[in-house]
């Protein structure tokens, strides 16, 4: 079962041609995907690039896959722009997390692309953001900080975190909810979000 899942994950190879290869895509669909690119592509790429640690190829694959998924959901998407954007970010994040898990599961295949040597234009700004967020995490209650740490920051699923924290998965989810709200409130007071 496990092997089968792995196989499926690996076989979903991101490719710049994936839109064309999908047999379900017709000309009108291509126009919609094109419109999604127009509307969100560069903004999404900017966000995704940061989340992928500035790995451009990976980032482009993620954007491609996100917009194809958006096209698949086009019928039920709410077209309120703020929400649509938030939803796209969520889709992209799931794709990135899948990628991170695959990469850390196969450490020998992680390429040493020398990305650390690539200088990021807004590095100092990012360092400040990292500091401000770290400090905000420190100000949270232990429970709140811990649940953010043991889930998102350590690439753990809800169930994995539930085991580590010895609490039910439902509790992880609701604790995470209050933790993220508290974090956001704090950052908002600091003028970060």
């Amino acid at each position, binding site marked *: 079962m496990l092997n089968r899942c792995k196989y499926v994950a690996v076989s979903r190879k991101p490719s710049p041609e994936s839109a064309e290869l999908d047999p379900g895509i017709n000309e009108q669909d291509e126009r919609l995907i094109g419109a999604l690119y127009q509307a969100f592509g560069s903004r999404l790429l900017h*966000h995704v690039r*940061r*989340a992928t*640690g500035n790995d451009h190829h990976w980032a482009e694959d993620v954007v491609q896959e996100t917009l194809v998924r958006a096209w698949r959901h086009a019928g*039920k998407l*709410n077209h*309120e722009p*703020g*929400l649509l*954007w*938030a*939803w796209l*970010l*969520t889709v992209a*994040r*799931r794709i*990135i*997390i899948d990628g991170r898990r695959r990469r*850390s599961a196969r*450490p020998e295949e992680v390429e040493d692309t020398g990305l650390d040597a690539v200088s990021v234009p807004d590095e100092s700004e*990012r*360092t400040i*953001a*990292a500091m401000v*967020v*770290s400090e905000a*995490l420190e100000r949270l209650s232990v429970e709140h900080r811990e649940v*953010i740490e043991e*889930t*998102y*920051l*350590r*690439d753990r*699923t*809800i*169930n994995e975190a539930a085991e580590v924290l010895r609490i039910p998965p439902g509790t*992880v*989810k*609701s604790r*995470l*909810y209050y*933790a*993220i*709200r508290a*974090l*956001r409130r704090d*950052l908002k007071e600091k003028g*970060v*979000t």
Partner: protein
Amino acid sequence: MSSPPHHEVAAYALGLLDQEDNEVFERHLVECVDCQTELTELADVPDLLDEVRNKRSPIEGRPG
């Protein structure tokens, strides 16, 4: 299962729900204006947390 999964909006925004919960939550999201508002508000938070994780050594916390 019986109560609406409002609290899952944070796990959803962080991309942490498994496939099944994700689908359940998205069905809820389409109907729930509160969760739509919250998701929009929380959209920045994962990026901000990425600043922290990118700042850490990539080796840290990895097996091996």
